[in-house]
């Protein structure tokens, strides 16, 4: 089926998703559960990746541009800039698309093939809203926190690597991290993160919701959810970078 068909159906689904909830309290409780499931449970992987990412950037920067002409603060500065601008918001979101997106598509997809979505519809529940909206809100709230933790841990990882391998002193690194800091880059990163979170939840929700068939198709939907979330995130990242930084 054509791309246009999917885009049209995706936006129609969003129309359903954002129509008025039957019971706010029920939706809100689901949102809190999803924050735990999709957010808090991703903390481990985010922390691990961020620490190592920061460490690697620090070592790479130091070893690749080692010259007396380069100022002392460049390592800390580079780690901070690349982490806040791209690595944390974009790379971590891509990783989360893999973890969270596949979870969302698999959950909703298996509810579809086991007739549980039909059961919701038959009760008069707006199944798209009930299943997808809490996930959108949950990821849009929790991902910015994950990304901020990731920024912090990346910079900390750079410090650890720099200081323990002895390639840079603690004070030089910290001076670099603080050098010429424009808080707007954090705002920029968090805007991107929220957009990416919405992309992950809706694209994956879409693939889960329109699963047809059996368990094999649930697997296929889950893979598609990750691939399409990644593609859309990359496109959105390019557009947002142009829009917000140029």
């Amino acid at each position, binding site marked *: 089926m054509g791309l246009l068909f999917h885009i049209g159906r995706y936006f129609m689904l969003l129309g359903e998703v954002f129509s008025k909830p039957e019971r706010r309290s029920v939706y809100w409780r689901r949102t809190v559960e999803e924050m735990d499931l999709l957010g808090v449970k991703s903390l481990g992987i985010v922390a691990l990746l961020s620490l190592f990412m920061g460490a690697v950037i620090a070592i790479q920067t130091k070893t690749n541009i080692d010259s007396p002409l380069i100022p002392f603060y460049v390592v800390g500065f580079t780690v901070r800039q690349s982490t806040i601008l791209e690595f944390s918001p974009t790379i971590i979101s891509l990783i989360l698309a893999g973890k969270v997106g596949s979870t969302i598509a698999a959950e909703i997809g298996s509810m579809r093939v086991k007739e549980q979505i039909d*059961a919701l519809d038959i009760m008069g529940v707006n199944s798209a809203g009930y299943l997808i909206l809490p996930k959108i809100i949950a990821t849009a709230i929790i991902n910015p926190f994950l990304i901020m933790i990731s920024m912090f841990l990346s910079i900390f990882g750079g410090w650890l690597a720099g200081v323990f391998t002895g390639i840079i002193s603690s004070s030089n690194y910290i001076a670099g991290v603080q050098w010429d800091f424009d808080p707007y880059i954090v705002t920029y990163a968090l805007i991107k993160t929220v957009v990416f979170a919405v992309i992950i939840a809706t694209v994956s929700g879409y693939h889960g919701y329109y699963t047809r068939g059996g368990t094999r198709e649930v697997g296929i939907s889950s893979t598609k959810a990750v691939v399409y979330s990644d593609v859309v995130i990359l496109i959105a990242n390019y557009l947002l970078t142009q829009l917000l930084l140029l």
Partner: protein
Amino acid sequence: MIEVRQLSKSFGEVEVLHDINAQFHKGKVNQVIGKSGSGKSVLAKCIVGLLAPTSGEVLYSGESFQQMDKERKKLLRQEIGMLFQSSALFDSLTVLENVMFPLRMFATMSPAEMRERAGSCLKRVRIEGQDQKYPAEISGGMQKRVGIARAIAMQPKYLFVDEPNSGLDPQTSIVIDELIKELTEEFDTTTLVITHDMNSVMGIADHIFFIHSKRLWWQGTRDELLRSDNQELQEFIFAGSLMRQVRQAMGGR
């Protein structure tokens, strides 16, 4: 009352139901019977609007479902209870939460009242002490019964049950049949039961609809069913030896 008019349903090129006309009366147990794969579940899903009929319409108390707007459909659906053939319980909710789900979504009751209503529905289907278990932790027959409890939680005006007896032992089967009969009479529900269990047909059916080769092949009461000389119907109902003995006892051929 539910009325089905000239309903046909095809999946792509394959026609499953052809020109079905039927009336399902209020306060009566209407049973739809037919071979496996004859389109019984598809008929039920077309009636409740989970599948769109290829042509024809369905009227709920005289009002055409196909002409209702989205809001009206949602309201109507709060009056429909349905047990799916696969039970379709929500995996992530416990037994009690499953039954409470429609109440939480729509009912204006206190949480304590909801719990009490859900508890009494579970008791009616003879499920007790399983409240905190998840669907995966109870047997298939129990899932069916929890599904029925969930379907009746809102005291629906229209009740659809797709094979309530499959996977149940004969004794529990009778309990469930009787429960369906009771509820139908108590709340004056329009009940549609899909089954291929002849015990259930002989036990509670007020009116029987036999689906065969895409069509509504035959309909009538229990007595008419036993006396019918319709060839295909006879082949279907007298396939089991028990029913053959019933026929002999009645002095039939």
